[in-house]
């Protein structure tokens, strides 16, 4: 077992770190404070291929692997949780299902511009009444001639109003399963600008405040018949598989936030003086940092392992769930400790750790709460 990164991954990390430090970090505080979607940064990332890292070159991507993409989200999130999740939602939740389940026509029409960064992607599964209980979908799609007619709404959608292409999960009928009637769920590709597709209000969030989080509303929204993604009735499986990949992205975001908070705190405790010496000289500080660093390292191993599993294994649900569960909880713990070690300054919005702590909280909630991850993991143990 070799834990050293390959040359290409080392070089990729250098690239992502340089970009994050030079282009993303200077804007992070303002993006948060003004709740502004960092469009300029997204355009720069598109130009550099950051929006198609694991997508094959023949579909406009960079032809790299899931680990490279994971490191990109990690390095961006070290300095800005908002920018990290923009890349994660676009890549894992929109590009990936089209790459995995799309027809050749769908890939050419949608995956190519997404991977090139000409278009931004989003994914709509969650509804007001269907969060963790994803089966509780209400949005319906009815086939009418050559078109599907969508009615319903999706909430808390990342990249909401800024995206161009959306994966939308909807009920297409009722089917009998083991003697019971259950909802038949399918997946669709919906383009922004389709008549009947509008946006609700923008959510005001605790963290990742520059991320565009909106409700998607479908009112007799007619999309072409060929925009069904995968087979009719396979939508739930597509959504779950998509979330497996998405969880690796969010785990990487959580890891980045924890690393960013740790790095910032190490610098701070060297500078901050109390009782005549740097607070880093106190054993309490040293022990806190040691615990933070150890947990961050453990999270990193789980996240990278999940990314490697996505590259080499057919299923990686458990690896993704473990990585997300652990990294998210580490992010929350480490950012909270970082604020504590900053003392009063940690509570002031001028200091990055304050934002990082707010950003970290969502990683325990979206793309499956920590409780859902525990269900996935324990389900695999007890089956």
């Amino acid at each position: 077992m070799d834990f050293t990164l390959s040359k290409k991954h080392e070089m990729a990390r250098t690239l992502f770190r340089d970009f994050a430090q030079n282009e993303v970090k200077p804007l992070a505080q303002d993006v948060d404070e003004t709740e502004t979607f960092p469009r300029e940064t997204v355009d720069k990332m598109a130009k550099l291929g950051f929006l198609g890292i694991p997508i094959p070159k023949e579909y406009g991507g960079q032809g790299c692997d899931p680990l490279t993409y994971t490191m990109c989200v990690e390095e961006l999130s070290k300095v800005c949780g908002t920018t990290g999740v923009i890349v994660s939602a676009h890549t894992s939740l929109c590009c990936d299902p089209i790459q995995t389940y799309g027809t050749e026509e769908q890939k050419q029409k949608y995956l190519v511009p997404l991977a090139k960064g000409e278009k931004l992607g989003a994914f709509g599964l969650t509804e007001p009444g269907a969060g963790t209980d994803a089966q509780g979908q209400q949005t319906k799609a009815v086939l009418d001639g050559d078109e599907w007619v969508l009615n319903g709404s999706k909430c808390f959608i990342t990249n909401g109003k800024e995206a161009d292409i959306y994966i939308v999960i909807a009920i297409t009928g009722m089917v009998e399963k083991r003697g019971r009637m259950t909802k038949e769920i399918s997946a669709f590709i919906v383009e922004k600008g389709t008549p009947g597709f509008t946006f609700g209000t923008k959510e005001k969030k605790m963290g990742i405040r520059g991320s565009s989080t909106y409700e998607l509303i479908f009112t007799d929204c007619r999309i072409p018949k060929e925009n069904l993604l995968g087979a009719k009735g396979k939508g739930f499986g597509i959504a779950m598989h998509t979330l497996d990949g998405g969880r690796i992205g969010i785990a990487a975001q959580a890891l980045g936030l924890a690393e960013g908070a740790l790095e910032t705190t190490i610098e701070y405790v060297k500078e901050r003086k109390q009782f005549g010496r740097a607070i880093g000289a106190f054993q309490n500080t040293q022990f806190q940092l040691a615990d933070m660093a150890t947990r961050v390292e453990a999270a990193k191993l789980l996240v990278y392992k999940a990314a490697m599993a996505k590259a080499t294994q057919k299923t990686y649900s458990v690896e993704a769930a473990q990585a997300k569960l652990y990294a998210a909880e580490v992010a929350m713990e480490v950012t909270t400790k970082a604020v504590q070690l900053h003392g009063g300054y940690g509570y002031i919005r001028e200091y990055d750790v304050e934002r990082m702590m707010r950003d970290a909280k969502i990683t325990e909630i979206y793309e499956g709460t920590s409780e859902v991850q525990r269900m996935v993991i324990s389900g695999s143990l007890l089956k």
Partner: protein
Amino acid sequence: MKIVVCVKQVPDTKGGVKFNPDGTLDRGAMLTIMNPDDKAGLEAALRLKDQYGAEVTVLTMGLPKAEDVLREAMAMGADNGILVTDRVLGGADTWATSTTLAGAIRNLEYDLIITGRQAIDGDTAQVGPQISEHLGIPVISYAQDIKVEGDSVIVERQYEDRYHVVKAKMPCLVTALAELNEPRYMTPGGIFDSLEKEITVWGRANLVDVDDSNLGLAGSPTKIAKASDKVRKGTGEKVTLDPEEAVSYLMNKLTEKHVI
């Protein structure tokens, strides 16, 4: 059009400097980057490639780990990388370096050679012009803008308070300033591709028309008597006085320290 860009792996000034006992830099022990002026030269070449479809070859002389700057250049978009590395070439000053690089370039077809103005570790600004001298081609140094028109290159040559527009027939050599442009980032796909490509590795035997007496430490007219890291200055002294008192305080201090 064929462009050769000479790049140098230099110490990353953020990482501290280490020396060998003979006073030369211990390059193996330091964090390194691509020299900023060279990176601007590379970017200029890549822009000409974008515009005219040029073939860009990056050339470096150094330790085997100098391969890293070639990979970086190729991940940015350069087509080929050549590493000149050989024990007999170690410890070279500007004369021996330019002799070596010219000896390597004689193997290549080129219309334009671009080097950085100077490297941040030596700051001599001699290697580029010396290469042109060895090869017998014109040089335009301190380029703040490079354009190609037909078989000529048009360069804005920077001075302190003005610039000259100089036109030269290719082949010629141009030395680039860091402020020439904002070098592009690598791309993730470019990184993966660069590691699939072969780097050409040359040694002394591959150098054309060079004399051993002009190579390496032995062939370097420059002898380093002593080198040391930058000595940190003290924190200084801050005083708040009214102007009249301040002047006499300052004069006293300068007299005390025999400055005046």
